[in-house]
């Protein structure tokens, strides 16, 4: 190694200071000249003559210096260039091999790079904030109520800020939609509602104007707002004087104080259009005085040098103090600190890692395939290598040269792969589920490029090393002696079979996981949501809360709107519902049954709460199982009633008749009222298709109104004409209220399974690639084996072997490889399917049917891949085969 270092040093020196090296050599030549001159003088020559003779003996100094300079160059680099040139020549000479290898590799590297760009942007790349590792979310949890993660009440948040020493800043942040009116056509804008510290915490500078100051968060402060660059450019035509002007949000004026840069992403909510202080928000400002409403998500920045454990300990102490001080609101509530990035990424992490693993396996199979091709080729090149060895090339030298070839192959594949990845990332972006948190843009950036290059280099080494070692180890005497017959060692054949087995087992792993996901997805999309989504259109009408501030106003508005809409002949089947199943987030509430002991920590009762107009069940096709539906008599002045789901009846009223029983729950305003159960309806998957229907309790909208009318309409009319009709009615009532988020229910159900669809599709794609690659691998091994055995087959045929014997001989070889692959693949596939187990819906990770289907299809594909060369073997003409040797 020392010699190597020294040679590198001397080479680098030439590079760094060529002039000094030249001078050194000139001096050396001078000494040499002097010595020669002295010698001649000693022999009796005159000094002048001696000098001339010496010059002749030494040679022309200019030429010598030139030669020296050339030689002093970089032999290592020169060798490398020479190897590379030669590698290119060899690859050009075998265009078929080169094309197959480069394409295989390009697919593998392209797919890996594309997936990695997503993994990098979502999981690995730090959040786009200053010192993102200091950022944490502070959630409240209540083990007694079974609440793992929720926000904090504003009053508690103020205590946190005042009492803690671990965080340099804490800020609350929520988001919802507000209606922007005034200078522009009414539109709904995504609005982040933050405490003023938020912008200082994430440390972001506005494009223009200023961020919020602490006084903007005080009660009674003038309402201010920040707008996004996109909104400013789009809606406000990049008005240079926007700062200081007034915009209307939910029909209340706000002064624009700044513009946020387009690249800024709000944690959790990514692309936002407007930011306002919490105290100005029509919804959350009303919650501020209530210490018991744990609704405000909080993020914090740790002080430098403070550990998470220290911060957690301090927050625990504060929680303890708050629970002692305000037991009614804070008993049982604790604080949970989670790194912001981890929280934002959420459960996408596993799915992405599984995809990355899968695509890595595809590359491995591709490498095995190319290694196989190389082994085959190395056999036909064994004579060339033997001659080189005989001429004095060392083993290391031969390996190095063969590796240069595979490295060139790897880099070529990498280059094409990167081009594919650019395209792949574009294709992926359109496939990505919108629920994927994109805090960083997904693209092939320098880091991803570096990954791709590294991958191609590693791949080149991986598939090149083994064949190169085999080639270099070849017995040259044998290779030369065998003359025309190029020999293949038993080891090499074994290596080739081994690679084929590996390919089959890896393909099995991928097919198994893809098969399971596919089956699970099929079940997921065919499961009944409990209602009939066909022809259902939904639309949102959100009431400006400053104008419509009382529940009476909300109820009156909805009632009038519904009456107007239902009078339209095409829209008779309309209803109001908050929240809608699947389309909206469910609202889970604790409740008590009158006459039973109250809900306790050990036996908490919760159910999804839904507020509906009387026609809801009929419109949605939710069946009545007992009792009655709501009707127009269930108004706010009438006795409170509720309808429960079958699951709720089973769970909380086992062996009893729930009809006539009374429920109480603490929401909405008239919360403590007792509600009599008047009906039982069928179950609905309200959270997600993949989640079993839970307990649900419905109340009449008139008895529990919200500040919006979320409509569902069953109509055979087109979505746009339904939207137009609704809009027309709403405009007649209040021209400043927009109708938003009009969508078909089946589309929403479709969108709700976007994540499983995405991973199923990609894994299926990768499994397909794996299958094709493995089939090519088997095809290659068997065809090569047939061509090597032409002679043997000829003899067998000449000795009377039937075609069937030959066919079964070759197919037997294929199946032996296949079954070996399946045997190795089985435990790996089962292990892998347990990794995706929690993503499966209604399918066991060891699902025997999937396993059987995978094994069977692999065997069939392998047999087909082996059949083509086997047929060629059968056609062998014994005479030609015997002459062949």
């Amino acid at each position, binding site marked *: 190694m*020392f*010699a190597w270092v020294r*040679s590198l040093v001397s080479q680098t020196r030439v590079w760094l200071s060529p002039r000094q090296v030249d001078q050194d050599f000139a001096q050396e030549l001078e000494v040499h000249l002097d010595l020669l001159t002295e010698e001649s003088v000693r022999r009796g020559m005159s000094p002048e003559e001696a000098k001339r003779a010496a010059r002749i003996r030494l040679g022309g100094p200019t030429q010598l210096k030139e030669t020296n300079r050339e030689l*002093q160059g970089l032999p290592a680099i020169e060798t490398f260039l020479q190897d590379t040139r030669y590698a290119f020549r060899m690859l050009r000479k075998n265009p078929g091999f080169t094309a197959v290898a480069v394409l295989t590799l390009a697919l593998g590297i392209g797919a890996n790079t594309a997936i990695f760009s997503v993994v990098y942007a979502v999981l690995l790349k730090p959040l786009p904030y200053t010192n993102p590792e200091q950022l944490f979310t502070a959630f409240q949890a209540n083990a007694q109520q079974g609440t793992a993660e929720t926000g904090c009440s504003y009053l508690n948040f103020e205590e946190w800020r005042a009492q803690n020493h671990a965080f340099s800043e804490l800020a609350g942040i929520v988001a919802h939609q507000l209606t922007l009116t005034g200078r522009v056509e009414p539109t709904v804008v995504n609005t982040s509602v933050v405490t003023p510290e938020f912008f200082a915490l994430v440390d972001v500078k506005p494009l223009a104007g200023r961020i919020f100051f602490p006084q903007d968060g005080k009660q009674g402060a003038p309402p201010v707002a920040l707008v996004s660059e996109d909104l400013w450019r789009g809606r406000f035509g990049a008005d240079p004087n926007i700062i200081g002007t007034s915009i209307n949000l939910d029909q209340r004026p706000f002064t624009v104080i700044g513009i946020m840069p387009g690249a800024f992403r709000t944690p959790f909510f990514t692309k936002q259009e407007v930011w306002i202080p919490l105290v100005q928000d029509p919804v959350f400002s009303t919650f501020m005085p209530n210490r018991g409403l744990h609704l405000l998500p909080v993020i914090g920045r740790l002080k430098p040098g403070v550990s998470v454990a220290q911060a957690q300990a301090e927050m625990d102490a504060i929680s303890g103090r708050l629970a002692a001080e305000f037991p009614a609101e804070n008993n049982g509530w604790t604080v949970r600190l989670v790194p912001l990035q981890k929280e934002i990424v959420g459960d996408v992490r596993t799915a992405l890692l599984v995809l990355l693993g899968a695509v890595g396996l595809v590359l491995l199979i591709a490498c095995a395939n190319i290694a196989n091709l190389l082994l085959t080729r190395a056999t036909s090149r064994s004579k060339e290598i033997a001659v080189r060895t005989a001429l*004095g*090339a060392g083993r*290391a030298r031969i390996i190095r*040269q063969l590796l240069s070839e595979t490295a060139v192959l790897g880099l070529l594949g990498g280059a094409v792969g990167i081009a594919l990845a650019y395209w792949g990332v574009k294709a992926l972006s359109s496939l990505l589920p919108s629920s994927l948190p994109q805090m960083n843009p997904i693209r092939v950036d320098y880091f991803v490029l570096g990954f791709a290059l590294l991958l191609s280099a590693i791949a080149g080494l991986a598939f090149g090393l083994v064949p190169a070692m085999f080639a270099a180890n070849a017995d040259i005497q044998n290779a030369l002696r065998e003359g025309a017959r190029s020999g293949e060692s038993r080891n090499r054949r074994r290596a080739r079979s081994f690679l084929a087995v590996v390919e089959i087992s890896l393909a099995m792993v991928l097919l198994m996981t893809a098969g399971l996901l596919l089956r699970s997805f099929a079940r997921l999309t065919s499961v009944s949501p409990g209602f009939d989504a066909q022809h259902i259109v939904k639309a949102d009408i959100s009431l400006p809360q400053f104008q419509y501030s009382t529940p009476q106003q909300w109820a009156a508005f909805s009632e009038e709107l519904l009456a107007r809409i239902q009078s339209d002949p095409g829209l008779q089947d309309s209803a109001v519902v908050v929240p809608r199943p699947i389309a909206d987030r469910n609202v889970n509430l604790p409740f008590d049954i009158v006459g039973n002991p109250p809900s306790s920590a050990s036996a908490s009762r919760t159910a999804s709460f839904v507020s509906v107009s009387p026609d809801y069940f009929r419109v949605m096709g939710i069946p009545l199982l007992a009792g009655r539906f709501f009707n127009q008599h269930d108004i706010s002045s009438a006795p409170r009633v509720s309808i429960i789901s079958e699951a709720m009846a089973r769970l909380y009223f086992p062996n009893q008749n729930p009809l006539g029983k009374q429920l109480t729950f603490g929401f909405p305003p008239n919360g403590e009222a007792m509600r009599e159960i008047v009906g039982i309806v069928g179950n609905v998957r309200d959270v997600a298709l993949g989640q079993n229907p839970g307990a649900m309790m419905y109340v009449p909208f008139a008895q529990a109104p919200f500040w919006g009318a979320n409509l569902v309409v069953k109509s055979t009319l087109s979505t746009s004409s339904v939207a137009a009709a609704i809009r027309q009615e709403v405009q007649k009532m209040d021209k400043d209220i927009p109708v938003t988020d009009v969508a078909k229910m089946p589309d929403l159900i479709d969108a709700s399974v976007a994540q499983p669809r995405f991973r199923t599709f990609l894994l299926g794609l990768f499994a397909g690639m794996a299958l094709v690659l493995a089939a090519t691998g088997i095809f290659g091994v068997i065809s090569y084996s047939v061509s090597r055995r032409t002679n043997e087959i000829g003899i067998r045929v000449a000795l009377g072997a039937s075609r069937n014997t030959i066919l079964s001989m070759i197919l037997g070889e294929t199946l032996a490889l296949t079954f070996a692959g399946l045997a190795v693949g089985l435990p790996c596939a089962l292990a892998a399917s347990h990794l995706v187990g929690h993503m499966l819906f209604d399918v066991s990770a060891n699902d025997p049917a999937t396993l059987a289907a995978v094994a069977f299809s692999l065997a069939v594909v392998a047999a087909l891949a082996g059949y083509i060369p086997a047929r060629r073997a059968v056609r062998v003409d014994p005479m030609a085969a015997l002459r062949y040797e």
Partner: protein
Amino acid sequence: MPGGKSETLQGPLDLMVLKTLGAMGPFDGCRIARRMEQISEEFLLVNQGTIYASLVPLIARGWISGAWGTSNNNRKAKLYSITKTGRKQLSAEVRNGERVSTVMGRVQRIAERG
């Protein structure tokens, strides 16, 4: 043969330089050249300067090293000596030389037979 110059010696001249330095210790370029001329007619250099063309690759491979010093006639000169790796290479080369000659002999015999 492409790429064949790195691990093996270029030819008998390299081997002789290594042998000379291995046996007789540090020499300057002039003395190496003269020694080569003495050993055999075969190594007759067109002119003594070409010896440096052989020394440079040997240095690059780390088999010999050169450093300015004082030669035995008390002159400042650049002196070359063999390194540890150089010695290893020398003994390996001697063995390889034997191997190559047997193989080449065999090839010749096969050729004659065939």
